[in-house]
C-alpha cells in the first residue's frame, strides 16, 4: 500500500503540484444478515482505492479513484491538480508535517482471517437466538447482523509523511421485537471487537431482547421538567455531539457554542472528557491520524473546565497551535476533516442503582431518535425524540415513549449532577466510551 501512496504522490508532483499527499486504503470484509434462523444475505466485499490532495502553492484540490494502474493514477493526479486550480488561495493550506508514531498498537485479530464464513453465520444465528430467549414477550428478531473487516491504510506526502498500518474490526447487532399490551416494541443490542472471536453473541442478543421486552406497554409521560438519567448509549450520542462542537473547524468558523471559551467552566465539575487516539480499547485508535500525524491523548474538559479544541494540520496552523492528530476520514473518497478519535468520559463513583436513587423522581432515557435533525450544532440547542422508563421513588418504573427531551448543550453539561461508575464503548456516530449521566433537570414533552 505504501508503494501505491508514494507512486500517487510522485504522479501528482509530476502533474504540476507543488505539494502532494496520498491516502491509500484497501479492505476486505464480510457481512451476514439472518432472520428466523436462516441466512438472508451473505456478502463478501473487497475494495481498494486512493485519494490524493494536491497543492499548488496555497490552493488545495482533491481527487480519488479505483483505477490503480499507472495510467489511472496519473489521470487522478491530473484531476487533483485541476481541482486545486479552482480553489481560492488560503494562507493556512498546505501538506501535513507527519512525525514518528509514539506507540505500536495491536489493532488486528486473527479470527477475522481464520474464521470461515460459516462460523460467522453461526455467530449471527446465536445473536438472534439470544434475543428470542431473553424474554417470553420477544416474538421475533427483525434482523441479526454480524460483519467483520480487515483494512490496510497507507499515507505518504511530499512533506515527508510515510506510514502504514493494518487493523481489523467486527460488530454484531440485532433489532428484537417484543409484543404485548399496546403493540410492538423494538430493542437494539450490539457488540464490537477486533474480531468475531471477541464477541459474546448470547449477551448481544439478550441486550436486544431485554430492551424490547422492557418497553412493552409503554405510555406517554406528562410534560414537565425533571431529573433525567441518560443510559450509556444515549449519553454517547450527546458526547459525540459535544465532540463535533469542540472541533476547531467549527470553532474557527464561528459555528460552535464553545468558541472563545478555553479555560472557562463549560460543564459541571463531575465532567472530564478526553480524546485518546491510542486507547487500546478504542475502535478509533490508530498509530496516526488520516493525514499521518501521530495519534495522542488530549484532555478536552477537566473537572468541567474547557482545556482545548481538536485540531488537524490546517486548523492548527490557523490557530497557531499544534495538531491534536484529529484528522479523520470515512474512506479514500473523502478529504480529511477534523473529528474525534475516541472520546472518553472519565467515570465517576456512582453505581447505577444509586444514580436512580439520586434522581428520585424523573426519567431514564434508553433511546433517542432524530439526532441528525433535532440538534443544532451551531447554537447547541436540541430537541430529540426519546423512549425509556419512568424513575419513581429512586427506582425504575413503567416504560414510556413518544416524548421529547430538549435543552441546550451548554446548560445540559452544567446540569450534570453525577457521572456513573460503569462505562461502555458505543460505536454510533464515532467511538465513545461513557458511563450513564444524571442530568439535574431537563425539559420533557409528552402529553
Amino acid at each position, binding site marked *: 500500500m505504501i508503494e501505491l501512496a508514494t507512486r500517487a504522490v510522485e504522479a501528482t508532483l509530476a502533474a504540476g503540484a507543488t505539494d502532494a499527499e496520498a491516502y491509500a486504503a484497501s479492505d476486505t470484509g464480510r457481512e451476514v444478515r439472518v432472520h428466523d434462523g436462516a441466512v438472508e444475505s451473505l456478502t463478501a466485499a473487497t475494495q481498494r482505492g486512493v485519494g490524493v490532495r494536491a497543492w499548488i502553492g496555497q490552493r*488545495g*484540490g*482533491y481527487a480519488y479513484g479505483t483505477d490503480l494502474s499507472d495510467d489511472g493514477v496519473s489521470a487522478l493526479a491530473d484531476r487533483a491538480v485541476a481541482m486545486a486550480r479552482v480553489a481560492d488561495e488560503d494562507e493556512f493550506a498546505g501538506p501535513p508535517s507527519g512525525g514518528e508514531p509514539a506507540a505500536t498498537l495491536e489493532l488486528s485479530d486473527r479470527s477475522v482471517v481464520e474464521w470461515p464464513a460459516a462460523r460467522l453465520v453461526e455467530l449471527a444465528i446465536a445473536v438472534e437466538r439470544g434475543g428470542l430467549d431473553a424474554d417470553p414477550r420477544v416474538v421475533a428478531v427483525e434482523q441479526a447482523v454480524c460483519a467483520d473487516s480487515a483494512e490496510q491504510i497507507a499515507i505518504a506526502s511530499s512533506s515527508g509523511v510515510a506510514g502504514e498500518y493494518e487493523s481489523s474490526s467486527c460488530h454484531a447487532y440485532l433489532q428484537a421485537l417484543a409484543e404485548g399490551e399496546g403493540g410492538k416494541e423494538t430493542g437494539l443490542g450490539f457488540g464490537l471487537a477486533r474480531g468475531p472471536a471477541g464477541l459474546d453473541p448470547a449477551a448481544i442478543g439478550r441486550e436486544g431482547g431485554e430492551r424490547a421486552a422492557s418497553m412493552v406497554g409503554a405510555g406517554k409521560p406528562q410534560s414537565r421538567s425533571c431529573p433525567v438519567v441518560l443510559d450509556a448509549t444515549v449519553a454517547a450520542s450527546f458526547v459525540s455531539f459535544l465532540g463535533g462542537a469542540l472541533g476547531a473547524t467549527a470553532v474557527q*468558523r464561528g459555528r460552535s457554542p464553545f468558541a472563545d471559551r478555553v479555560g472557562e467552566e463549560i460543564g459541571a465539575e463531575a465532567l472530564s472528557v478526553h480524546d485518546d487516539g491510542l486507547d487500546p480499547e478504542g475502535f478509533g485508535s490508530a498509530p496516526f491520524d488520516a493525514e499521518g500525524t501521530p495519534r495522542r491523548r488530549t484532555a478536552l474538559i477537566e473537572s468541567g473546565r474547557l482545556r482545548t479544541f481538536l485540531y488537524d494540520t490546517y486548523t492548527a496552523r490557523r490557530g497557531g497551535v499544534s495538531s491534536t492528530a484529529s484528522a479523520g476520514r470515512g474512506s479514500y473518497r473523502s478529504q480529511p476533516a477534523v473529528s474525534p478519535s475516541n472520546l472518553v468520559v472519565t467515570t465517576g463513583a456512582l453505581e447505577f442503582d444509586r444514580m436512580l436513587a439520586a434522581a428520585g423522581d424523573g426519567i431514564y432515557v434508553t433511546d433517542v431518535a432524530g439526532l441528525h435533525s433535532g440538534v443544532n450544532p451551531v447554537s447547541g440547542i436540541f430537541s430529540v425524540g426519546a*423512549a425509556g422508563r419512568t424513575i419513581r421513588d429512586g427506582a425504575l418504573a413503567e416504560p414510556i415513549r413518544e416524548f421529547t427531551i430538549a435543552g*441546550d448543550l451548554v446548560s445540559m453539561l452544567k446540569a450534570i449532577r453525577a457521572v456513573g461508575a460503569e462505562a461502555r464503548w458505543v460505536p454510533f456516530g464515532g467511538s465513545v466510551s461513557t458511563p450513564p449521566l444524571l442530568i439535574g433537570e431537563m*425539559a420533557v414533552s*409528552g402529553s
Partner: protein
Amino acid sequence: MTSGGLLEPEVAERVLARALAAGGEFAEIFAERRGGQTMSIDESRIESVQAGDEEGAGVRVISGGTAYFAHVDGLDPADLERAATEAASALRGERREHRPLTAAATTPQPVERRPEDVPAERKAALLRELDERGRATGAEIAQLTASYAEARREITVANSEGLLTADDRTRVRIGVQTVARRGDTVETGAETLGGHRGFELFDGDPGTIAEQAAGKALTLLDASPAPSGSMPVVVAGGFGGVLFHEMTGHGLEADHIQKDASVYTGKLGEQVAQPLLNAYDDGRMPNEWGSDSIDDEGAPTQKTLVIEEGRLTSFLYDRLCAGRDDVASTGNGRRESFRHLPIPRMTNTYIAPGDAEPEAMIAEVKRGFYAASFAGGQVEPATGDFVFGVSEGYLIEDGRLTRPCRGATLVGNCLDALAAIDALGSDFEMKTGICGKGGQRVPVGTGQGHVRIAAMTVGGTEA
C-alpha cells in the same frame, strides 16, 4: 439507451454462468461507473474542490431465499468473474442454466447540459453568487456556506432471466447553510435545490435559495422557545413531505411488512386515513431528484398509488419481496452503489394536493403549531414512532401565525397521526432529500401541499 451499457453481452453471459455454477435460482450482475465533482464556499472562499471516479460490480446469487453477494472494484472481465466466483463460493448445488440475454431499451431522464462539460470555474461562480446573495439578505448573517455537487451513475444490470438493461443518471444539487447572529442569539437556516438533470437546473435564479436560507436564520433571531404538548399542527408544502415519507412511506416498504415489523402489516385494503387523502410513490416524475428510468434491479420505475381515498392500496416492492408475495416488483429495488444489495426504497413520495386554501387551514386553528420546514426526520417502522426536527416553526394563535419558535421537534405514532390528517392544501411542491436505511443512502424526493394534523406532540423548551 439500447445497448448493454457497461457489460459486453458475451462477458455477462459467462459471468452469469459462473455465478450459477454451484446452483441458485437467480443470478444478477450490477455494473456501475460512478463519478462526480463537489466543491463548497465558506468564509467567501472556494474550497474542498473534489472529483472522483469509481467503477465496479456486484454479483448476486439467490438460492432458497438467501442472497449471496460479492462486490469488486473494476469492470474487467477478470474482476467480474472474481465476484461471481466469490458469490457462488458458499453454494454446493448443481449447476443451473441462465436464459440468453436480450437487451431491453430504456429512456434515461433527459439531461441538456452535462455537468462534467461545464467548466469548474462556472460552478465556482455559482457558489460565489450564492454567497453574495445570502450575505446581502441581512447584516446579521454572520456565516454562510454553500455547496455544489454533481454525480453521474451509469449502471447496467444483467440477470439469469435474460434481462440486460442500462441507465445513465445525472444529478446536480446545491445547498446553502447560514448562521445569523445577534448578540448571544445564534440561529441557522438551510435550503437546497436539486434534480435528476443537468446544469440547466440552475438556468433560473438559483440565488433565491441563498436568500431563503438567510431569511430563515434571520426570522429565527426573533424566535422564542417552542411550546410543549399536544396541539393541532399545520405543515407547509415541499419538504413537509418528509412527514409522509417517515410516517407512512417507510412502513410500506415490503421488507418491513414481510417481517411483521411495520405497523402497516396486514392493513392492505383498510382505511388508514380520512377519505381526502391520496398518496403516491412515483419514480418517473420528470427530472425529479428521486426519479430513475429503471430501478437498481432493472425493473422499470412506476407511479404507484399507495393510499387511495384513505385506503391502503399497495406496498413498495423490490424483486425478492415481490416474489414472496407473488406480485410484480413496483420498481423500488434501489441500492446506494455496486457495493450494496438492493432493498425496497422509496423514490419520490408525496401526498396529492387537496382543495383547501392554506390560509383557511391555519385560520381554523385556535392554538397550534405551524411547521414551515423540517431539518429531517426518523421513524421506527415496527412501532410506528416517529420524530421530526422543525427547522422553521411558528405559533398559531387565533387562526394567525404570531411568533417564530426555535428548537421544536414533533413526535408521534404513524397510524394515529396519519388518521389525524384532516385538511390538505391545494398548493404543491417537491423537495430533495437523502434517505438512510440499512446503512445505505439514496436520493429521494418528498412532496405535498399544506397538511393539517388535528393533534400531534410538539416538543419544545418553553417552560
